[in-house]
């Protein structure tokens, strides 16, 4: 049903530029590559250019300069082949509120060449998959936000796309609906669908994405796995709270072999901070070493860099609403 080249990158962007009236550059020389079968999290604040990139990749906008290929096909020269390969769920679930879920799925099927029993069966299975069987014949205007998003996802899946574009799929959803959508995205990815996910929620990127690209002012400012990105900012820190300030010297000596001990902070004489790539794995050895040196401890905490730290480090600013997404139930 699609024209996907399975050996090609799922998404390949080179020097992409998009200018709007007044010379505003929403996308300013973007390069990125998404591998087949991965979930790529495209992270950035409002106005960073995420949606413009998605609209170009889904053939809804033309680039001003540069090139973009999706499933091996150029988004301008082979736009129709791109459309056969992709599923799209845009930021504002653009669903006609006067139609029912079933009607919309049937219409979407017709747009992708499905008909007869195949169209009916696909509609039924997708409704079941996104948990909307009971609401299938109700007008979408009466759906909750979560139901609309699930329907939007089902609509994007009608033709079994190779690459699925989800533009801020969980914005405005409650934790339960968000969790349901995350599970569905993971399941789709397990089935082999490449997912290009834009989000302004750090936790969403951490939870779902194999790799994350951070965009700011239309440029890719960092890219990598969430762990690799966080490692770029710095190693995890072990905060050891001692029972007595007098034992700080012994504690520092005990921990020296496990990583880099931070200089003493006169404002916190009972605290010793150890930087170590081992992160949580260093807790056991640290406690044993302190015990061997006769150091009594009150508590041990591990502080791991977050994607927000990464964002702040690469852009010099905090992500709006960073990490404020409530964790799904």
């Amino acid at each position, binding site marked *: 049903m699609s024209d996907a080249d399975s050996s090609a990158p799922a998404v390949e962007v080179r020097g992409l530029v998009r200018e709007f009236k007044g010379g505003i550059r929403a996308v300013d020389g973007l390069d990125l590559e998404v591998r087949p079968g991965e979930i790529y999290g495209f992270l950035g604040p409002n106005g960073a250019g995420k949606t413009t990139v998605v609209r170009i990749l889904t053939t809804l*906008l033309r680039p001003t300069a540069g090139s973009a290929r999706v499933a091996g096909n150029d988004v301008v020269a082979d736009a129709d082949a791109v459309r056969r390969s992709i599923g*799209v769920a845009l930021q504002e679930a653009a669903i006609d509120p*006067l139609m029912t879920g079933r009607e919309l799925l049937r*219409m*979407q099927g017709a*747009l992708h*060449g499905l008909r007869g029993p195949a169209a009916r069966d696909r509609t039924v299975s997708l409704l079941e998959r996104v948990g909307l069987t009971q609401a299938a014949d109700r007008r979408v205007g009466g759906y909750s936000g979560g139901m609309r998003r699930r329907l939007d996802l089902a609509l994007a899946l009608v033709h079994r796309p190779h690459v699925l574009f989800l533009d801020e799929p969980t914005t405005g959803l409650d934790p339960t609906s968000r969790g349901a959508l995350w599970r569905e995205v993971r399941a789709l990815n397990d089935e082999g669908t490449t997912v290009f996910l834009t989000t302004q929620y750090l936790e969403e990127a951490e939870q779902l994405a194999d790799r994350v690209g951070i965009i700011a002012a239309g440029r890719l400012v960092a890219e990598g796995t969430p762990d690799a990105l966080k490692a770029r900012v710095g190693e995890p820190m072990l905060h050891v709270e001692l029972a007595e300030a007098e034992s700080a010297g012994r504690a520092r000596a005990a921990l020296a072999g496990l990583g880099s001990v931070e200089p003493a902070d006169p404002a916190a004489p009972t605290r010793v901070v150890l930087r170590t790539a081992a992160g949580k794995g260093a807790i056991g050895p640290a406690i044993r070493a302190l015990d061997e040196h006769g150091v009594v401890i009150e508590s041990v905490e591990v502080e791991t860099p977050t994607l927000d730290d990464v964002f702040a480090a690469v852009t010099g600013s905090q992500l709006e609403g960073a990490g404020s997404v409530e964790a799904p139930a």
Partner: protein
Amino acid sequence: MSAAREGRVVVALGRRALSVQFRRAQLLMPTFVLPLMLLAVIASGTSAAQDLRGFPDVSSYLAFLVPGTIIQGALLAGLTSGTALASDIEFGFFDRLLAAPVRRTSLVIGRQAGTLGLSVLQTTFFLAVAYVFGARYPGGVDAALAAIVLAAITAVGIGGVAAAIALRTGSLSLLQSIFPFVFVLLFTAPAFFPRELLTPVLRDAARFNPLTYVVEAVRGLLTADGSLGDPWAGLAAAVALALATTALATFALGRRLRAA
């Protein structure tokens, strides 16, 4: 993409356009109720017009007026179709269609298919209601069917203009503000009075209004009186309008996509 597949796309889009129309109360009012209200006002308030010298000898004044109502319906059907398209553009539904692997022209023709279906239902409804209230159609069922076809093609013609405006501007409010101009088009055609009784200025304007030929053709068909209108002239005007404006809408879509 095969022609058969594109045909199925057009049918799917037309079906959606039509079904949604019946779920929008604010669009049903102007397309089904308003023309009949105007017919009732004109039929009861201006019936003395048929006594004027030069007024054609018709068996039923109501039957004389019904073609005007039918053309008014076609105008409103076309315009509401454009309004619905502007709404799709403004609220993002049109993007969903653009992201699908279908010919861009099918998106325009699909919308036009919905307009055509709406007009067929409208005209049938108007003819039936007028019949109940005493209008008689000496042309018979064949004439009524021909009138339905003429009105539907005309609605497609008006729908093409409205679609072109919607695609060019993407503005729902602009489309809504155009509604009053329907009446300018309607009254610069001999919709409710014979062309001969219009003022010289209006009579000259009517010559350049394609709706003149359509409304006269419908009148000639329903009354079975060829002197009141030439069906072929009406068909030619309606088809020319539909082809020209559908091409205009397709051009507007192409321009919109190139500018995107």
